[in-house]
């Protein structure tokens, strides 16, 4: 089996247009959540979100490309440019067939759905742009990534709601580890901050109107974000041979299903996923210094996740640091695991633990070290990143410093 390392990382989200900008914002505990800018805002009851501002796609993509690129594809391509640039990898014709893409997205081309439903239903038009289907399809971003980088191996998109990115990265990890391919681009993206998207989330009544406060007794729900995170995964030998800088080693992955409820999380499903990732990584709970929590800021998630960490980590639960950066970048839905993996990279490489901001009052049901409000310096050699999705589909990744 191959060892699998990360040699490139890229992102765009409400905290920054690059990885360094994003990590700097996290070090400072900066809030990316603010008033939404959106058509028909007055008809929404939830008016906040972690929206990407100052992103003008026309600077980066020409008119013909934009006719085919939904916002989710644009964000994915922005993140992949940074990741590929950092990796320094050139996908030659020889490497091309041994390179693939796995991306995660929950909603795919949501903006395209939204805009075109408006056209035909609200504006009464009888015709839409000819590229609506290829623009909105869930695999569009992965496809454009394959075209942009001459990737001719296995490419696909997975969709497991809020765990989509972790499933995507985990599958890519297994593909490189097994020897199926040498290189994978993996990650995820979502851009659900549309009027229809917000209305759908409002309906569930789990959205906060004020702030995302994971693990805080006065939490009031989740806040939606948008963005993308992309990673270059390759074999340790391949990275060494070409002299690439290794950001971290992916060492474990596990996925479980609750087989329970369509929205309520399940402690045992989460415990089994964390234990499975540790077992796959051949790590003990004591080896883990930091957990990037799923930490949505809903009562249901936070209580279940904290209880699951207590159970999976036993007495070590009191020593492990766990934060939810959704308090800063919001919940990127299918893209969230990818942006949150950056937090693990920062912990492993820079010894900086990103905080859970917006934390005001301790919750006895979440009596763990949630790194409240201020970033912390700490030496960490291994981390977990949790994702527990609607549908009871859980995916946990384990990383180790190299």
């Amino acid at each position, binding site marked *: 089996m191959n060892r699998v390392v990360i040699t490139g990382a890229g992102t765009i989200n409400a905290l920054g247009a690059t990885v360094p900008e994003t990590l700097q914002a996290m070090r400072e505990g900066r809030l990316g959540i603010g008033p939404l800018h959106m058509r028909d805002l007055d008809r929404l*009851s939830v008016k906040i979100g972690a929206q990407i501002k100052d992103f003008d796609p026309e600077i980066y993509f020409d008119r013909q490309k934009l006719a085919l690129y939904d916002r989710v594809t644009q964000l994915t391509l922005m993140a992949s440019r940074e990741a590929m640039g950092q990796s320094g990898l050139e996908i030659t014709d020889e490497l091309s067939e041994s390179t693939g893409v796995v991306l995660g997205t929950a909603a795919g081309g949501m903006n395209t759905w939204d805009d075109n439903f408006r056209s035909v239903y609200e504006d009464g038009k009888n015709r839409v742009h000819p590229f609506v289907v290829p623009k909105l399809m869930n695999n569009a971003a992965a496809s454009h990534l394959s075209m942009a980088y001459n990737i001719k191996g296995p490419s696909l998109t997975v969709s497991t709601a809020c765990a989509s990115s972790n499933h995507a990265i985990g599958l890519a990890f297994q593909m490189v580890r097994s020897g199926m391919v040498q290189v994978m681009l993996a990650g995820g993206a979502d851009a659900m901050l549309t009027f229809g998207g917000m209305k759908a989330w409002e*309906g*569930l*009544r*789990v959205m*906060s109107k004020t702030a995302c406060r994971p693990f805080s007794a006065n*939490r*009031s*729900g989740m806040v939606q974000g948008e963005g993308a995170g992309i990673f270059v995964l390759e074999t340790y030998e391949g990275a060494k041979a070409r002299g690439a800088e290794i950001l971290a080693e992916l060492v474990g992955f596990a996925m479980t299903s609750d087989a329970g*409820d*369509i*929205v*309520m999380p399940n402690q045992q499903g989460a415990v089994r996923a964390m234990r499975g990732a540790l077992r796959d990584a051949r790590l003990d709970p004591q080896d883990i210094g930091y957990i990037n929590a799923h930490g949505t800021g*809903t*009562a*249901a998630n936070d209580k279940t996740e904290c209880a699951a960490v207590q159970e999976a980590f036993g007495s070590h639960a009191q020593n492990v640091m766990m934060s939810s950066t959704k308090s800063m970048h919001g919940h990127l839905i299918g893209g969230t695991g990818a942006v949150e993996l950056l937090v693990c990279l920062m912990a492993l490489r820079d010894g900086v633990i990103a905080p859970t901001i917006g934390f005001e009052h301790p919750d006895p049901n979440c009596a763990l070290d949630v790194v409240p409000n201020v970033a912390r310096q700490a030496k960490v050699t291994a981390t977990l990143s949790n994702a527990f999705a609607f549908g009871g589909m859980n995916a946990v990744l384990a990383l180790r410093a190299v």
Partner: protein
Amino acid sequence: MSVKDKVILIIAEQGLLDVADVSLSATLEDLGIDSLGVVESIFAIEEEFDIEVPFNANAPEESEFDISSVATIISAVETLVAEQT
């Protein structure tokens, strides 16, 4: 039909019960309605009466809309209907 009868009908439908089995003192939990069922019942109430119900599923006990029993729900809906229509 009164507000009370309409609310009871909505709750009965949600719990797959006969109207006669929905007692005023029952909690939604007693009637087999889980958290998702609560959210769906509130949606049905909003649609039926054309009102906005202030309710956050993260902290039901802190919401202005008291869902602790069938009777409190009826009373809260009556208040909202009076205020909002």
